[in-house]
């Protein structure tokens, strides 16, 4: 093969790979819109204003407002639980831990990040869920258990991202703060954290994105009632859980099928929004 054909071939390969990435994003959007079109046409606004999700009844009802609210609520509560703890752990690892200690604990978190969500869900289902019955909670799978599962699922990503942004703050900033008489804890929480704020915010956004898209944990641990839970021990169902649990038994091309694609469309809009916010935070920080 001569030099310029090789050159052309390699350039073509690179172009093809970029085209595949671009068409994947557009393809996913187009497919979701195309397949959910008939749900929008036939069910219309009821999709988003009704709480009645009875897709296999006669007549069926396709109101997924409760599931949208559940998805957002789980995201909010999950982030509220996981972010503060991640922050404290990251501060410890950044400022106080010895190098070996830091390396070891980081390693534990990295392994946890690789644990499949179905494994986390099963362990909680097998060992924690039965405890609910003993304290008289009627639903062994509920919002609380799902939040515990989400906590284990997201704490490694959140901690690692916050730690990375704390570690990337220049040492001189901390030394200046110490020279002014601030104790370590004050330096880390007031000075280093302030300098690392964009990174920390980015970590929060990506954590939220991870939670909103999580399926198996909320499906197996959430209890699966398409209603808005009134307390932590009520069962609930999110958009992701509805898609994964109902799609295999749904007739392709039916209204139920189409409205599950509409649920997917709502999800991808959330995730795109989160990613755009994350990009914006990082870009503003660069300047």
């Amino acid at each position, binding site marked *: 093969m001569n030099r310029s054909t090789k050159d052309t071939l*390699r350039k073509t390969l690179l172009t093809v790979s970029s085209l595949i990435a671009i068409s994947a994003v557009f393809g996913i959007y187009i*497919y979701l819109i195309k*397949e959910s079109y008939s749900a929008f046409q036939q069910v219309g606004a009821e999709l988003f204003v009704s709480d009645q999700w009875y897709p296999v009844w006669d007549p069926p009802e396709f109101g997924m407002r409760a599931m949208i609210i559940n998805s957002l609520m789980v995201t909010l509560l999950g982030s509220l639980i996981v972010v503060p703890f991640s922050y404290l752990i990251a501060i*410890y690892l950044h400022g106080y831990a010895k190098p070996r200690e830091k390396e070891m604990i980081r390693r534990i978190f990295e392994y946890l990040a690789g644990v499949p969500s*179905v494994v986390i869900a099963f362990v909680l289902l097998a060992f924690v869920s039965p405890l609910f019955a003993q304290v008289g909670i009627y639903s062994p799978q509920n919002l609380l258990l799902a939040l515990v599962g989400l906590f284990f699922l997201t704490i490694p990503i959140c901690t690692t991202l916050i730690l990375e942004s704390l570690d990337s703050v220049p040492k001189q900033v901390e030394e200046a703060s110490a020279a002014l008489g601030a104790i370590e*804890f004050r330096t880390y929480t007031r000075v280093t954290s302030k300098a690392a704020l964009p990174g920390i915010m980015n970590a929060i956004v990506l954590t939220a994105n991870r939670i909103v898209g999580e399926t198996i944990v909320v499906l197996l641990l959430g209890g699966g009632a398409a209603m808005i839970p009134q307390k932590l021990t009520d069962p609930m169902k999110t958009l992701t859980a509805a898609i994964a649990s109902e799609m295999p038994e749904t007739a392709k091309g039916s209204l139920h099928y189409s409205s599950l694609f509409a649920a997917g469309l709502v*999800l991808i809009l959330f995730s795109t929004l989160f*990613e755009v916010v994350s990009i914006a935070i990082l870009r503003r920080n660069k300047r």
Partner: protein
Amino acid sequence: MNENTNFSQEVTKRARKSNPVNKGMRSKVTLRVITYIFAALILSLFLLALIPGIRYWNLDFFTQAPSNGMTSGGIFPALLGSILLTLLSLAIAIPLGMLLGIVLSEYNLEYIRFVVTILSGIPSVVYGLFGLGLFCITLGMRTSILAGALTLALMVLPVISSSVYETMYAIPRELREAAYALGARKSEVIFEMLVPSVKRSILTVSFVAAGRAIGETAPLILTAAVFYATNLPTSLLSPVMTLPTHLYFLSASYGKNARWMAQGTTSVLILFVIVVYTIAFAFRREKK
């Protein structure tokens, strides 16, 4: 007299409390306790996933198909399905992810970076919906290994490409300039100098991606997996059982009699993850 000692004790106590050094110690100890509690919780999660299931491992467990309504037999079809799906999806995603990583690093195209970031954030179940719509229905692959592998490949693509991008981007400018000065073209600089120097990191990320791919459940429920396959897969268009979906179906719809099998499957999955990540970390450390 008594009052006096109380007073001096109080003064010492307050002084100790407001002493910045002691304050610092307290926060250090508190933070350490929090960190260690969570590290312990995570370790116990690993142990609970790994240990109770190991006693169900025997030759039959790995070589038999489940029988009697998932209450006896083994997990061979699921094991086979997971291995096939993971290997096939990686065979598609690694070359593609490498090329995409090169584009991210060597061509300053803002919109490609944007696209990859968006891809990396899309929920796995949405990938599943897309795979179901495009591969299974429109392209007529039905519920099959191929449809599942393509969907998984698309999912791990951003993971692989952003990792290749990071390592390649970190290679010093001067090296590229030196190659250009010798008369190399851009594609030659990339494929003959940069790619060989990121080989090891591609190996690392392949293992990380394998860990990701083998544990994915939701997209496979939609595109590739059935809860019970009567036959072993005969072609790329056969449906399969996989370890994570097997575990999911067992925990979702089978009772106490199938629990031993779920525990055994959990142990296999977690052991797999530990092994794969340990290899990945070993490669990464060697690089340092």
